[in-house]
């Protein structure tokens, strides 16, 4: 754990220090690669610009709403497919078919159907997150060790207790993995929709800076989104590791 942390720090120092050095020594055109410190300064300004934070808020809102709708829907439909094998046999091929198609190609269809705006972004985020969460929660149900259910029954567990005491904790690690990947995909979906066509949001900003070659602003935006996404991902991964800590070294035997 501490070694990994040290690894992150060394990695960051090399990349960011190297970047700063290359820019300062004029090894590349400063219009193409402004120094790291300058990008940081711009990022600092952004954080104090209410119009910028409002855009950030729009994106966060779209991602949040999309995820809050997708997550419970996807977990429960994955659970249903896991419990009803007839349903799974019917719908699993469809799910895997959809998973194989790059969803970004449907964006124009979404725009035609729902217009450009909050609804379209949220729906695009939902479709990005839904299927991967579903597949993971399906796998989670299928992975529940059957003998543990027999144990619970022998000791008098009611059906409700079997769900809360066996299913839930046994499913949790895989479901959390699905939620984490779903969250990342949800962010990708919303940003993609914003960059393609939008009036607000951080994706729109970044795309605009790219088009007008405002490189320091562009890099600052990219950096901010990266930091936020990494933070979300790592937080969810820590939860996942915490819950899954019993499973790495042991089976039920």
């Amino acid at each position, binding site marked *: 754990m501490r070694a990994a942390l040290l690894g992150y720090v060394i990695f960051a120092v090399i990349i960011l220090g190297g970047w700063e050095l290359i820019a300062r020594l004029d090894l590349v055109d400063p219009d193409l690669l402004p120094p790291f410190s300058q990008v940081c300064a711009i990022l600092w300004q952004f954080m104090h610009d209410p119009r910028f934070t409002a855009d950030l808020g729009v994106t966060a809102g779209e991602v949040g709403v999309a995820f809050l709708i997708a997550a419970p829907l996807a977990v429960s439909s994955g659970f249903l497919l896991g419990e009803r094998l007839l349903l799974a046999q019917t719908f699993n091929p469809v799910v895997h078919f959809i998973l194989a198609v790059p969803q970004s190609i449907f964006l124009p269809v979404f725009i035609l159907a729902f217009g450009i705006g909050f609804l379209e972004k949220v729906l695009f985020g939902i479709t990005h997150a839904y299927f991967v969460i579903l597949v993971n929660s399906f796998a989670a149900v299928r992975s529940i060790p059957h003998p543990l259910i*027999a*144990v619970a029954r*022998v000791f008098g567990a009611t059906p409700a207790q079997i769900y809360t005491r066996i299913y839930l904790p046994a499913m949790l690690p895989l479901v959390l993995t699905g939620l984490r990947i779903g969250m990342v995909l949800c962010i990708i979906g919303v940003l993609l929709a914003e960059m393609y066509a939008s009036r607000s949001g951080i994706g729109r900003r970044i795309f605009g800076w790219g088009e007008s070659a405002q490189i320091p602003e562009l890099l600052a935006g990219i950096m901010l989104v990266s930091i936020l996404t990494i933070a979300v991902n790592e937080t969810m991964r820590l939860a996942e590791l915490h819950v899954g800590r019993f499973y790495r070294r042991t089976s039920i035997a």
Partner: protein
Amino acid sequence: MPIIEVTSLAKDFRTGGAVVHALADVSFLVEEGRFVTLVGPSGCGKSTLLQILAGLISATRGEVRIAGEPIRAPMPDKIGMVFQDPTLLPWKTALANVEFPLDLRGIDRATRRKRCSELLKLVGLGEFADNYPHELSGGMRQRVAIARGLAPDPRLMLMDEPFAALDEQTRTRMGHDLLEIWEKTRKTVFFITHSLTEAIYLSETVLVMSARPGRILDTIPIEFPRPRELDLIGTERFGRIRNRIWHLIADTPK
């Protein structure tokens, strides 16, 4: 009144189109407080029989009564069970695993803590209450499972080849310790194994089962005095009994 009464029990499984006869016409009685072992070759339907006794699956024909009551579903107040694998909940500590049956029944924390700590001491794991299953050895996990089976204070303990997955030394030690526990608690134990030595060493009565379709070939009383020591296994009398059971199983035409 016998605690287990099995009368003309049969179980068929349907796999695809074919019907497999797992058990054919099994009848026997077990008196309360006894240590009875059912021994038979692998795949003879021993585990199937135990699952029927536990109320986990239903019989095709015949009847099972536990303490006079026909069994149709698990009887958690009367029956405790130890499975072939420890089947502990990986996300619970050893103590919490022992508490699990009491927890299901809504018994308050302090009461179950106290009772289950004592049970962990009984199986020799007093020091390991806060360890998770993955931190325990295979033998220790099975000890936790035995304590869990005893937790609801059942009248009958069903044990499904509980030591089969352990190495020989651990297995012998566990059998010896199980006898000590049994002498202290005097629960009825119905034990299943394919090891003749284990069956004879542990029990007062050995039921010998045939290969599939399983039926009882003979009931053999084992009259060695208790407490029994491991040296018993090497004696000539022990060997004679083992040979007798071995021939019963081997000489029975399929």
